[in-house]
């Protein structure tokens, strides 16, 4: 054996007998609960009645089309996508303001964060919906957009924002959700900016960078790399929190699931199915973000 011999391969992690015992115990406990519930409820499981609301066959064309639950899932995905972008923009600006020299900007951003963090989400959403959306949108002409205009009545619009007739409803929910989540992103961004050492600012100023260039080229790129993990967590939270928007009648997954549950009376099937849909969606995004983090880490050469 020489120094150059590669080290022995690390032993693969194995499940031991104790691990299997533990699994068995958990499975048994779960099985017992299910059995008891079944015994008490004498529940008649009818999955097909709920699954019909995922996809159905269109009577006219004879083709499969998305039914309520899948439509709701699509709306939730749209909310998640645009909500993420909007919340990131608001959070980035507000987070930067939190670190500004200007006292006024600091007060504004601080007030925003404290206001939202210290009101229950439900209350915030009701306030926003009844006092702002119902007043501001009519004033801006947003609540009856011309659904037949070519800007709106096209395939891209339908793909990106859903049914044009529901657009103002969608927009209300979107802004509400984004404003709510952005308060948390603001704090993440602030922490990220403040974690950049003073020397980086000074070096940037010393080579004559303007404040804008300094932020764009030096501070934000480093801050974003650092805050990627908590940011990813917050975006997953955004998807889950989007369920709350159902309370102001935005027709996303939870709202439509409530209707399906009510009309079929198949409460268990509906919510188990919807829970699984959320899980897949969130887990998928968590996976994507984890990938992004690995890539960002690789390019950093620490």
């Amino acid at each position, binding site marked *: 054996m020489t120094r150059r011999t590669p080290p022995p391969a690390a032993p693969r992690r194995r499940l031991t007998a104790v691990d299997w015992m533990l699994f068995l115990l958990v499975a048994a406990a779960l099985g017992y609960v299910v059995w008891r519930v079944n015994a008490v409820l004498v529940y008649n499981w009818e999955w097909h009645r709920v699954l019909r609301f995922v996809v159905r066959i269109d009577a006219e064309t004879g083709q499969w089309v998305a039914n309520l639950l899948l439509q709701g899932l699509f709306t939730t995905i749209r909310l998640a996508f645009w909500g993420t972008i909007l919340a990131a923009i608001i959070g980035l600006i507000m987070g930067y303001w939190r670190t500004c020299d200007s006292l006024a900007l600091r007060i504004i951003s601080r007030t925003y964060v404290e206001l939202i963090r210290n009101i229950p989400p439900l209350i915030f959403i009701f306030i926003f919906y009844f006092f702002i959306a119902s007043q501001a949108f009519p004033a801006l002409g947003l609540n009856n957009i011309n659904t037949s205009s070519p800007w709106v009545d096209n395939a891209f619009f339908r793909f990106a924002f859903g049914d044009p007739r529901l657009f103002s409803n969608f927009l209300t929910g979107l802004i509400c959700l984004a404003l709510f989540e952005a308060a948390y992103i603001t704090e993440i961004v602030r922490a990220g900016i403040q974690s950049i050492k003073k*020397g980086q600012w000074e*070096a940037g100023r*010393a*080579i*004559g*960078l303007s404040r804008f260039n300094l932020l764009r080229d030096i501070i934000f790129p480093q801050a974003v790399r650092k805050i990627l993990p908590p940011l990813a967590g917050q975006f997953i939270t955004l998807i889950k929190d989007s369920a709350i928007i159902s309370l102001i009648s935005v027709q996303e997954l939870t709202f439509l699931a409530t209707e399906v549950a009510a009309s079929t009376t198949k409460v268990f099937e509906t919510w188990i199915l919807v829970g699984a849909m959320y899980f897949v969606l969130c887990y998928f995004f968590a996976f994507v973000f984890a990938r992004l983090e690995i890539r960002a880490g690789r390019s*950093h*050469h620490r």
Partner: protein
Amino acid sequence: MTETSDRPLVEISGLCKWYNDFSALYDINMNVARGEKVVICGPSGSGKSTLIRCINQLEEHQKGTLFVDGKEVRPGMKGIEQIRRDVGMVFQSFNLFPHMTVLDNLVLGPVRNRGMSRTKARELAMGYLEKVRIAEQAAKYPPQLSGGQQQRVAIARALCMQPKIMLFDEPTSALDPEMIAGVLDVMESLARDGMTMIVVTHEMGFARRVADRVVFMDEGEIVEVATPEEFFTTPKTDRAAQFLSQLLAH
């Protein structure tokens, strides 16, 4: 051109600076001529860093006047970037941008501040990396380099702005002993090329070889100004003598 080039490159008069109630600099008067090399030394906390950081306004002074290349430098002034492009600075802790390659660290300033094309800036940057003998590391990221290499890159980054004066704030204090010589070599060759330099350092050998003047500071004031020979052999003030004896004791 004619008028300003007769004037000293840096003119400081009656400069004062406070941190809250604490007087960090008091009544500083100092000129630095074109091509001159000034070494500033003094005990820790005597205001050396604060003084040179006022020159490029990393710190704002509250009283007194400051001219760089004939242009007045005022706290909170607009267009400070135009002053800073002429004033290179090298920090004790290098402060390279860790998310950019060595080459991009150098290219950034000329492109953003001087509006130079990226191609031209790269050429310029490679020239300076050559000069600090580190061109082969151009594609690496700063955290992959040793301290001495990082500091040489930092010098090249400052030079890339083609400044009229270079400020050094204890450039070798954070380095392992075996790295110091390489950095001092680069600074000496820079001095031979005629660069105007203000160097905060306790490297006596360097001061003797390079400095035209040594400025000794204590408690925010300039206590003594002398040639290196005079200063290190026969200091005029007790405070300087005491400082030197402590320096030699190490």
